[in-house]
C-alpha cells in the first residue's frame, strides 16, 4: 500500500496517537474548571500552546486553537472583514485559493464587501506588484495562500508582506496549511499578520488547527459563548487534540530537517521520469514549488481512470483538492493558471510525506510507465 495523497490528509504518527490517548485519559477535566482536574488540564493545554508558539515563531498569546484549516481561514477572513468594516470594505485575494478562502470571500461579497481577485501566471504564482497595485484606501485585508494545495507553487509571501508594510491600515493573512509541513517559515520573520495551519496535514489529528494572530489585532469571532481562546473562539478546549497537534508539529520539524534531501530527490526523480513519459505534461513549476507536491496532466485521458488503475496496484493519488474532488469538474486552480481546459480536466496530484520512501516513488514511476502508454493506446492517441 503506497499512500501518495498527503496533501489531502496524512497518517497520524504513533507518538501522536499515544499523546492523544494519554491526554484524554489522564487530563479529561474542562480547562475552564477551577478544580485541580481543570487546572491540570489547563496547564497541559497551555504547555501545548507554548510549544506550538515556539515552533511557529510566534508569541504564546498569538496562538488561537481552532477545529482545523477551514475554521482558521474563515475566522481570519470574516473576523478581520467584520471587525474592521468601518475602516473599509475592500478585500484582496488570489484566484488560486483553497475553497475555504475563496468561498469565505464570495460570502462576504453577498454582504456588500468588494473583493479583488489577483490573477496568477502559468506557474500559478501571483505577482507581488499586482497585489500591491490592487490596494486601495479602503482595503482591510489581503489573503494569499502560501503553498498552493494542487500545484505546490510557493507564493512570494515575504515580498508581498514587505510591500504591504507600507499600508499599515490593512492586514495580511496567509493560508499556510500546505506550507507548514515542508516549507516552514517563522511567523515573526515572514511578517504576516495572520496565518492558518491544520493538524491533520502534518500527521496530527483531524479536527485540530491553529490560527496565528499578531498581537493587538481584533477579530470578530465566528463562535460566541464562554470566551475561550482570548475571547476569539468559544467552546470547550480540545485539550488532547491540541496536545497531539503540538507533538506532531515538533516531530514534523525534526523530521523535516532530516528528510528534506530525501523528499527533494524523490520529487526530482519523479519529475525526470514524467518528462520522458509520453503524454505527460507537468503542471508543478520547477522552481519555487513545495518539495512534496507534483501535479501532472495527461491530456485526453480521464484522471479518474488513471487513479483507479493505480489503486489496483496499491498506489493512492488524487485528482485535485479533496475538498472539491466530489464534483467532476476541471481543476479551477489549473484553469486559473491559463493552462487550458484540457490540462485542467486531466490533472492528477501526487503528494509525498516524510515517510515516503525511494522505493515507493520508483514503484509509482514503474506503474505509470505501464499504465499511461496502455491507456493512450486504448484512447487512440498513441500508436
Amino acid at each position, binding site marked *: 500500500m503506497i499512500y501518495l495523497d498527503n496533501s489531502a490528509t496524512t497518517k497520524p504518527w504513533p507518538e501522536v496517537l499515544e499523546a492523544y490517548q494519554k491526554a484524554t485519559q489522564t487530563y479529561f477535566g474542562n480547562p475552564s474548571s477551577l478544580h485541580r482536574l481543570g487546572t491540570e488540564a489547563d496547564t497541559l493545554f497551555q504547555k501545548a500552546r507554548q510549544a506550538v508558539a515556539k515552533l511557529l515563531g510566534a508569541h504564546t498569546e498569538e496562538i488561537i486553537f481552532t477545529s482545523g484549516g477551514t475554521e482558521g481561514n474563515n475566522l481570519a477572513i470574516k473576523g478581520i472583514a467584520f471587525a474592521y468594516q468601518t475602516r473599509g470594505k475592500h478585500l484582496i485575494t488570489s484566484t488560486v485559493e483553497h475553497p475555504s478562502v475563496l468561498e469565505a470571500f464570495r*460570502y462576504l461579497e453577498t454582504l456588500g464587501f468588494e473583493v479583488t481577485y489577483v490573477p496568477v501566471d502559468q506557474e500559478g504564482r501571483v505577482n507581488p506588484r499586482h497585489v500591491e497595485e490592487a490596494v486601495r484606501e479602503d482595503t482591510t485585508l489581503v489573503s494569499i495562500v502560501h503553498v498552493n494545495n494542487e500545484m505546490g507553487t510557493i507564493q512570494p509571501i515575504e515580498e508581498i508582506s514587505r510591500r504591504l508594510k507600507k499600508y499599515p491600515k490593512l492586514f495580511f493573512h496567509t493560508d499556510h496549511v500546505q506550507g507548514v509541513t515542508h516549507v516552514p517559515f517563522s511567523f515573526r520573520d515572514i511578517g504576516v499578520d495572520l496565518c492558518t495551519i491544520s493538524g491533520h496535514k502534518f500527521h496530527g489529528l483531524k479536527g485540530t488547527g491553529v490560527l496565528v494572530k499578531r498581537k493587538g489585532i481584533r477579530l470578530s469571532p465566528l463562535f460566541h*459563548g464562554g470566551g475561550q481562546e482570548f475571547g476569539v473562539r468559544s467552546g470547550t478546549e480540545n485539550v488532547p487534540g491540541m496536545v497531539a497537534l503540538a507533538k506532531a508539529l515538533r516531530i514534523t520539524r525534526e523530521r523535516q530537517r532530516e528528510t528534506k534531501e530525501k523528499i527533494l530527490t524523490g520529487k526530482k526523480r519523479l519529475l525526470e521520469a514524467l518528462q520522458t513519459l509520453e503524454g505527460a505534461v507537468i503542471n508543478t513549476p520547477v522552481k519555487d514549488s513545495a518539495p512534496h507536491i507534483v501535479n501532472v496532466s495527461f491530456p485526453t485521458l480521464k484522471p479518474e481512470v488513471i487513479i483507479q488503475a493505480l489503486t489496483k496496484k496499491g498506489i493512492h493519488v488524487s485528482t485535485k483538492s*479533496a475538498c472539491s474532488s466530489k464534483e467532476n469538474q476541471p481543476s479551477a486552480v489549473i484553469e486559473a493558471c491559463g493552462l487550458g481546459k484540457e490540462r485542467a480536466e486531466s490533472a492528477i496530484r501526487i503528494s509525498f510525506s516524510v515517510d515516503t520512501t525511494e522505493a515507493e516513488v520508483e514503484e509509482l514511476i514503474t506503474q505509470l510507465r505501464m499504465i499511461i502508454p496502455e491507456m493512450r493506446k486504448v484512447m487512440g492517441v498513441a500508436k
Partner: protein
Amino acid sequence: MEKIYVDHAASTPIDERVITTMIEAMKNQYGNPSSIHSFGRDARKLLDEARQTLAQTIEAKPNEIVLTSGGTEANNLAIFGYARANKAKGNHIITSAIEHHAVLDACKQLEKEGFRVTYLPVNKDGYITKEQVEENMTDETILIAMMHANNETGVIQPANEIARLAKEKNIAFHTDAVQTYGVLPISVKEMQPTMMAVSSHKINGPKGIGFLYVKEGTKLIATFAGGEQEKKRRPGTENLPAIAGFATAAKVALEEREQRGSFYQHLTDSFVSALKEEEVPFQINGDANHRVPHIVNIYFPWTTVESFLVRLDFAGIAASSGSACTAGSLDPSHVLTAMFPEEGRAQSSVRFSVGKGNTKEEMEYIAREIKKMMKTI
C-alpha cells in the same frame, strides 16, 4: 487522598471503548473522506455509519445530522444560521435568561445586527413556562431557543410543550440538549424541534465534536465557507476519529441510558440524604422533582463559593460553581442570579454533577467533608 470527580456536567472522562474506536480509526481510516481513492472511500464508509448511528439515537434521518466541533459551534450555527437565513420573515427571537453562553452570547451578537431578542426570566424553581413564551410571541418572531435542561441546576424545561407551540405558530424551535442527550430519552419525531444541539464530551466521548440536528428543509447560513462537506452546512475536513468515537459513546449511552439514569438518581439522592443526616444546612436550587438525574445544585447558607470550592479541592473533590464555560471567571452564575435576583444565593451555591465511576460511598464522603467544612465557618 481520594480523588473524586463530580463535575461531569463540565466534561467527562472518555470511555475505554470510545478510545479503542478512535485509535482504530486514526490508524486505519486516516484517508480524507472526500478523496475518491480507496483510503477516502473507507473513511467515507466509516463516516456514513457513524452518522447513521448518531441519527438513530434521536430518531432522525442521517442527512439531518450536521457534525460540528462541539456544543458551542452547534448552538451558534443554529442561532446565527437560522436567524441570518430567515431575517426576511421577521426579526424577533425568544430565548431565556438561563441559556448557556453559547446561546446567550449568540443572541447578544444578533441584537447588534438588528434583531430584537426577548430573554424570558425564570421562576424560583428554575424553569420557563409555555405561557411565558406564548405571551411574548409576535408576528415578527422567527425563532425560539430554549434549552432542554439547564446545565447548572439540572432543571428540565418544558421543551416538548414549547416545541409544539412553536410548530402550531410556524416558528422555528431550537433546543440546546447538551445536558440531556444520553441522559433523557430524546426523539425528534416526538419533540419535533427544528434544531437541536448536542456535544460529545459530556457523554464520555471525545472533546472537539458535536452535532446539530437540523430538520430537513430548514434554511441555514453556514458559519464556515469552504468545501462541500456536511452538504455545505459545515465545510472542513471531517474529524473522522472523533466522529467515530462520538458514535460509539452515543451508542453506549443509549444502551445504558436507563440503567445509568437510575444509578445517577440514586447517587444524587444519596448525596442529599447524607447531607440531611450530617445535619448540614442546605437547600436544593431549582425544582428537585424536575431535574436531570446527574446534576444537583445546592445552596449552602453562610458560605462563599470560591473558598468552598478550594476547600473541596483540598479534600480531593472536584465540583464547580456553575458553568465551566465562563472560562475560569468567577462572575456569579447568571442562572442562579436569574432565579434569585434579590438574594446572594449565587455566591453560596455549588453544582455537583455525577457520572460514570462515581459511587455512593463517594457521595457520603463528600457530605462528611462538607460537614467538617461547615463546622469551621
